[in-house]
């Protein structure tokens, strides 16, 4: 069952690479949160109940509901245009994401370690790399934050793989999550969409040090 959820997780990555609107990015983030919720429920069956409840609450509240809704609210409030505006065409993005997944499968196949759960490893690595790719290939700051959220989901998946032995790692993943929320709050408080008339990172290259 966990394998099924993780495969669906990879499919969300493919969808993310061809999605056109920023709102569908937030929806995909919410779906990933729900998937992670079920993965946590099925995978972490050896840690104590209080910790499990904490982790599950965090995944469903922060990852699946709060952050995507807040991002959607930011999109409306800061008048950010609804298209993702990638540097590369979506077709190329899809090919690159597929290449990332294949590369991680090949990479993990070459690792001869019996302690490592390969399925989690593949999903985590491909999520981290496609999050990096999304950050590198999209133009707006808000998409950079979304790409960061995706990377962070990947780190969380990786920590789940060893979650039964080392629950502290999962808690560290949650800390990362809360840190990311603070990052989004920064965009919210600074009203980046409003202050710079357009939120194009191109303009950051104009900053100079005298």
């Amino acid at each position, binding site marked *: *069952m966990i*394998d*099924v959820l993780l*495969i*669906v997780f*990879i*499919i969300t990555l*493919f*969808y993310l690479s*061809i999605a056109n609107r920023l709102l569908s990015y937030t929806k995909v983030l919410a779906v990933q949160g729900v998937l992670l919720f079920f993965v946590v429920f099925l995978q972490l069956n050896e840690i104590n109940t209080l910790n499990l409840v904490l982790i599950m609450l965090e995944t469903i509240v922060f990852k699946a509901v709060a952050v995507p809704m807040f991002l959607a609210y930011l999109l409306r409030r800061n008048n950010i245009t609804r298209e993702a505006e990638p540097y590369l*065409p*979506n*077709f190329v993005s*899809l*090919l690159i*994401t*597929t290449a990332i*997944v*294949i590369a991680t*499968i090949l990479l993990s*196949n070459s690792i001869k370690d019996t302690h490592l759960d*390969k*399925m989690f490893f*593949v999903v985590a690595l491909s999520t981290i790399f496609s999050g990096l790719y999304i950050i590198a290939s999209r133009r707006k700051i808000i998409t950079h934050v979304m790409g960061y959220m995706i990377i962070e989901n990947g780190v969380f998946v990786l920590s789940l793989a060893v979650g039964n032995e080392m629950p502290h790692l999962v808690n560290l993943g949650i800390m990362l999550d809360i840190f990311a929320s603070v990052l989004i709050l920064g965009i919210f408080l600074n009203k980046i969409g409003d202050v710079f008339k357009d939120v194009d990172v191109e303009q950051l290259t104009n900053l100079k040090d005298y």
Partner: protein
Amino acid sequence: MLSLFLIVIAAFFFTGIVVRTKSLASGRKGPGIMQPIKDVIRLFKKGAVYSKTSSIIFQIAPTIYFSSVVMAMLVVPFGQSKGLISFNCDFIFFAYVLALGKFFSIISALDTGSSFEGMGASREALYSMFAEPALFILMGSFALLTGYTSFQEIFAALHIGSYLSYALATLATFVLVMIAMIENSRMPIDDPKTHLELTMIHEVMILDNSGFDLGLLLSAGYLKFAIYGALIVNLFVGMVDYQYAIPLFFIIQFLMAVVVGLIESFMARFRMNHNAQFIVALTSVSLLIFFGAILILGKFN
């Protein structure tokens, strides 16, 4: 042998059900279920008109197209009973005999010398090229999973047990339905109702065909849908007895026709430049099926 009869019977009703679903969804009563077949019979009674600029290729292409679809139909099995032809690696034969028919329909469209038809031919060639790896990776991973290489043995040995194999069967059904839509030029890829030549794919290729030839092309299209439906049925009825399998065949074909009708009613056609990435996404999904097959086999851990 059994599959041949079943596919032909399903082909009689398939397009009628699609059309009826579309008209019910848009609040009309719509034509009868047998109307597409009546259209084809009417066309078969007519002669064909050939342009002076076209050559022999334009005249033989519809016949080759139709016969290639019939050849592909002969390979498709049904549950434990083999197709009329069955040999090792016959899914490669299946894919390429369909591709041969498609090749002839493309060069016959180029043969007419119409610029519209050339454009449609180029699109059709591009989309079939993108759809091909999806089908091969899908069938290849099933072959890997079962250890056999012919359609009948693959489907007979494919039994669904664990959660992962349920997921793989769902994904495979999705990929096969979408490949059927691409091969038949239906809605998310191509709009069969469109009246503007610039947005057509398949329709624009057969603009110059008339009478008997057009009847052949249309009936080949009906058969193709039923063939892909039969492939999907085969995913599920590998070990089932005939008294359950035959009703199941018609139920799944009916459901697939209704789904196609509903998709055509409630979705808009993709923009032309989005089609390619959609079709390549199917390849990515079938790569995941391949990955899942490796996981089931335990070659990965």
